[in-house]
């Protein structure tokens, strides 16, 4: 069982935390895999595992209701995450449905694909005017780099998934977490480009993410330091569009939360429905400082580095 994220421990700092209004609901996220995952990555910011039942799978009807509501709200993109989304037996049907509404992106560890699922999704993608994106998580371009973080054998299994995607005509975006502070992004990009080309992917696509020092990551490297927080002074001249909470919300089986990173924080639950969850949210978690610093943490490169 995970420990719910505390808000900043200093009450005064918490009360002074800058409020961020939702400018427009651009990105609608679905915690479609709950917190269940077949892997147990040592840096997972919500400590997903085969045993974490904090959040359950979303069913097709719940997703359908939110998609219908999203039309009225003018949502731009749909994102599906977990846990591992493809453990949810409705996942293929959910993506087929979402592609009738707009562009869909699924964040997966790439280890559980069945060819028949990918065949159906290739057909749905071909029939839709919108893009279906697969973001496959991998944290090193060799097993020696990746497996200590994601688990023994996960490099080979994820690369098999990448080859399956490529064979079905998809162009996966490899999502890499910068798992040590002194990593060189250029070296990471070059290593992954080489790896992907060797595996038949002639259009290598890579997204590098910073580490979020919450969940399992707190025990792997370190948690946030007290001074790693967003203060009111830091908001002067800052582009709010960099913050996920400025343009996103996430639907879970336990209500609508402010962003996919903070679902274990009780105060991040904003309501039962999307309409209720459109209210502002204060940047009172240490993890907000990572979002502040890097920006566009969770969106695709095609959304632009500084989404409005």
């Amino acid at each position, binding site marked *: 069982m995970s420990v719910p994220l505390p808000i900043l421990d200093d009450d005064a700092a918490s009360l002074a935390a800058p409020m961020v209004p939702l400018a*427009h609901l*651009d990105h609608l996220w679905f915690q479609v895999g709950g917190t269940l995952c077949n892997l147990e990555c040592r840096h997972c910011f919500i400590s997903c595992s085969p045993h974490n039942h904090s959040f359950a799978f979303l069913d097709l009807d719940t997703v359908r209701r939110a998609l219908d509501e*999203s*039309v*009225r*709200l*003018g*949502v*731009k*993109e749909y994102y599906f995450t977990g846990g591992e989304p493809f453990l949810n037996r409705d996942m293929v049907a959910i993506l087929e449905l979402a592609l009738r*509404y*707009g*562009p869909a992106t699924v964040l997966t560890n790439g280890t559980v694909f069945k060819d028949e699922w990918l065949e159906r999704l290739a057909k749905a*993608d071909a029939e839709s*005017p*919108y*893009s*279906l*994106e697969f973001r496959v998580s991998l944290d090193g371009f060799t097993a020696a780099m990746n497996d200590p973080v994601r688990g023994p054998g996960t490099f080979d299994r994820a690369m098999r998934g990448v080859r399956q995607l490529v064979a079905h*005509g*998809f*162009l996966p975006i490899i999502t890499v977490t910068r798992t040590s502070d002194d990593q060189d*992004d*250029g070296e990471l*990009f070059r290593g992954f480009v080489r790896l992907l080309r060797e595996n038949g992917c*002639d*259009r290598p*696509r*890579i*997204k*590098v993410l910073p580490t979020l020092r919450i969940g399992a990551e707190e025990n792997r490297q370190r948690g946030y330091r007290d001074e790693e927080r967003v203060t009111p002074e830091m908001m002067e001249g800052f582009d709010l*569009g960099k913050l996920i909470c400025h343009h996103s919300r996430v639907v879970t089986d336990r209500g609508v939360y402010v962003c996919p990173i903070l679902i274990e924080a009780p105060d991040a639950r904003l309501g039962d429905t999307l309409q209720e969850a459109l209210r502002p949210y204060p940047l009172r978690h240490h993890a907000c400082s990572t979002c502040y610093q890097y920006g566009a943490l969770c969106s*695709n*490169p*095609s*959304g*632009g*580095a*500084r*989404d*409005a």
Partner: protein
Amino acid sequence: MPDLTRIAIFGGVYNNYLALGAALASAKRQAVDAVYCLGDLGAFGPYPDRVFPLLRDNGVACIQGNYDNSVGNGLADCQCGYTDPRDNHFARISYDYTFKNTSPENRAWMKELPAQRRVRLGDYRVLMCHGSPRKMNEFLWESTTPTHFLEYLAAAHEADVILTTHTGLKWHRRLSGDRHVVNVGVLGRPENDGRTNVWYALLEARPALRVEFVPVEYDHRRLAAEMRAERLPNEFVETVLTGWWTTCLEILPAKERRRGKY
């Protein structure tokens, strides 16, 4: 606002003064009431200052793109928002070259360009912007922009027709209530489709709206030779000669990326 029935609109000149000259000649043959440019005058191609006399002499009404905003205000980069080090490498070369070769007078002119422009085309309220009505460098790709989102933009910005260019790939979507969103394409580089021509858009309201994309052939071999003479990257020259994008690929969504060669 001027009353118009037939207009030509282009964007993304990217220093390609040869394509600009060809497009202006084409628009003249089309007997349009006015010609508009949606910004990004610099980048990619050779001799930035050759673009400005053509725009001024032909009375082209321009708005500001992110490139013009950056060059005009002396910013450190083009605000294209790349994260891939390879894309950033080429964006840096392109920006530094353009900045260095744009005269102070032309920089000052770009700085003063409006971010948006509204005209009436027949009965249609037309809103011209660079990226989207809400942000100069927002990407509106055909495959990542759902119709209900465009309906929201059109309502929020009180427009019947929204015109954009930023992504560099043309498309047209019909919305409810005879409203439209058109990405007019760019003159600066080809469409990543293996053809060397570029595109602009022709809009007519007599009284119903008609949208036509017009291909523009120009002396792309001469442009390539001039780019080589200016020591611009071979990767850019290859795009001009082959019609395939070789850089700035990370920002393409899956469907648009699959259509290209790289």
